[in-house]
């Protein structure tokens, strides 16, 4: 199909304005699906052309450009608070780089209002990177761990 960039921009604008997560347009044999957050978008026909445009739209809303397609590889903080890697100041860390993790396994603690909230893994995988230093504050949505899944 021939891709009309103006049309595409219009779709992205619509998506944004109406606060939708997905729009799909079908005409004859052409199909364009514009989708944001969290996993990659698009019908097969337009995959290559649409992805960059959507990344641009994410940037406009203030998300980092790669967050749209890579979020699933990160564990993010569900609270504002203080990040702890271990259950006690002199305890061993819950996990380290290279460790295999299973769903439900405790990865760290985020302390908020004197409450120790254990953050559990939602998927199986391997810890590739620990992105926050022990004892540092984290905001809602901050990335804590990078994980290789599968």
């Amino acid at each position: 199909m021939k891709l009309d960039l103006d049309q595409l921009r219009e779709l992205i604008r619509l998506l944004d304005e109406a606060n939708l997560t997905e729009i799909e347009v079908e005409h004859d044999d052409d199909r364009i699906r514009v989708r944001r957050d969290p996993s990659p978008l698009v019908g097969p026909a337009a995959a290559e052309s649409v992805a960059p445009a959507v990344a641009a739209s994410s940037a406009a809303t203030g998300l980092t450009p790669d967050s749209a397609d890579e979020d699933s590889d990160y564990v993010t903080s569900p609270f504002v608070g203080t990040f702890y890697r271990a259950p006690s100041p002199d305890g061993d860390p819950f996990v380290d780089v290279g460790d295999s993790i299973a769903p439900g396994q405790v990865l760290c603690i985020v302390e908020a209002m004197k409450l120790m909230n254990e953050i559990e893994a939602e998927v199986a995988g391997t810890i590739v990177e620990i992105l926050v230093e022990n004892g540092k504050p984290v905001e809602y949505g901050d990335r804590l761990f990078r994980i290789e899944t599968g």
Partner: protein
Amino acid sequence: MFEKVLIANRGEIALRVIRSCRERGLRTVAVHSEVDVDALHTRLADEAICIGPADPARSYLHIPAIIAAAEITGADAVHPGYGFLSENPEFAETCAQCGLQFIGPLPEQMRQWGDKVSARTLAKSLGLPTLEGTGLVVDVEDAVTKAESLGFPVLLKASGGGGGRGMHVLNSKEELRAVFETARAESRAAFGNDALYFEKFLERPRHIEFQILGDKHGNVHVLGERECSIQRRHQKILEEAPSVALTEEMRSDMSATIRRAMTEAGYLSAGTLEFLLDESGELTFLEMNPRIQVEHPVTELVMGIDLIDEQVRIADGERLKLPARPLAPRGHAIECRINAEDPETFAPSPGVITELHMAGGTGVRVDSGIYGGGRVPPHYDPLVAKIIVHAPTRAQAIAKMRRALSETIIGGIRTNIPLHQRILDHPAFEEGRLSTHFLDELQG
């Protein structure tokens, strides 16, 4: 004094608080939801913390997230703004328990004044004039007796109702008999109880409110009135100070009454007492708002005072430095609330601000949370800016507001500026003939 203030709000009021804090040399912490990551309050505060997703219940209303944000930034005081958690006594209590100075009234005062029925009982016991009303009615015959003793027209209200719901205006006992059982069933269905009572119905009331400030040393000051009769569905749209409907004598009498009452109540921080003014010139207490209000700038301009800064000083335990005699208003101020909405249908109009030019010049103040290229998210209040003017006379203030609106450009979204222009151009508005039905009549 505390050194770092967390502002538990967004939009123009968050900026308003940041500004006063900065002038006082206090550091500021903004909290924001994910969609507000590029909002102006997020950008202008010294620090900003993302506390949750767009849904207010999980961000701006989520007490643990806000307290945690204060903890990780080392903030030692919290200003709640208006709306959101500003009148939530649990929030004020939690702040205190966590060693954070809450900039506002005491939790028990929020409880006392937050419930409309108990607020009126309290107001009456403090000697404030309240609207004539009856106790709960037993049956239809009791209702007729009570309504006749009050005198038609009356307002039949559901005890559990609010925001204008569950009300019937009745002009005669025949109308009352016809509607009584239906009203009772409606109340039971809508509010879970069928308790009904009567209030005197005022045909064309004005909405008049008085600004107060109280400190921790038992001093209460009354800072004149605002007229907020221009409303749509109980939402104020345009406010002014002073009101043309009050004589100097009415103003000073009511100020003295309120000062006595609220001193006795030991009221702390900024608050507003709302009244209805009937055509005979009688003011009756409606409700009390224990917080700073959207329309506070008109009072600031005619009284020459920074109400947010006074709240901060009061929270720190300082004494009010106001003269013993009530301040007299100087000149006239008008505020237009600019909402992101269709001026005809009132449908919300969120989106990206493509271009922006705010009014300026002498006597014009703009309190706003938007900027060119910024977004108005669909999740929150449609108020995007307040344009406030100050001039020696009301006629000059109207002319100044017309001028200010004519040079305001907000591209990319629709706003209610055309509605404000119609209000300002209406002969009844120019003559100061206002009532809470003004807008209905303008549009009807």
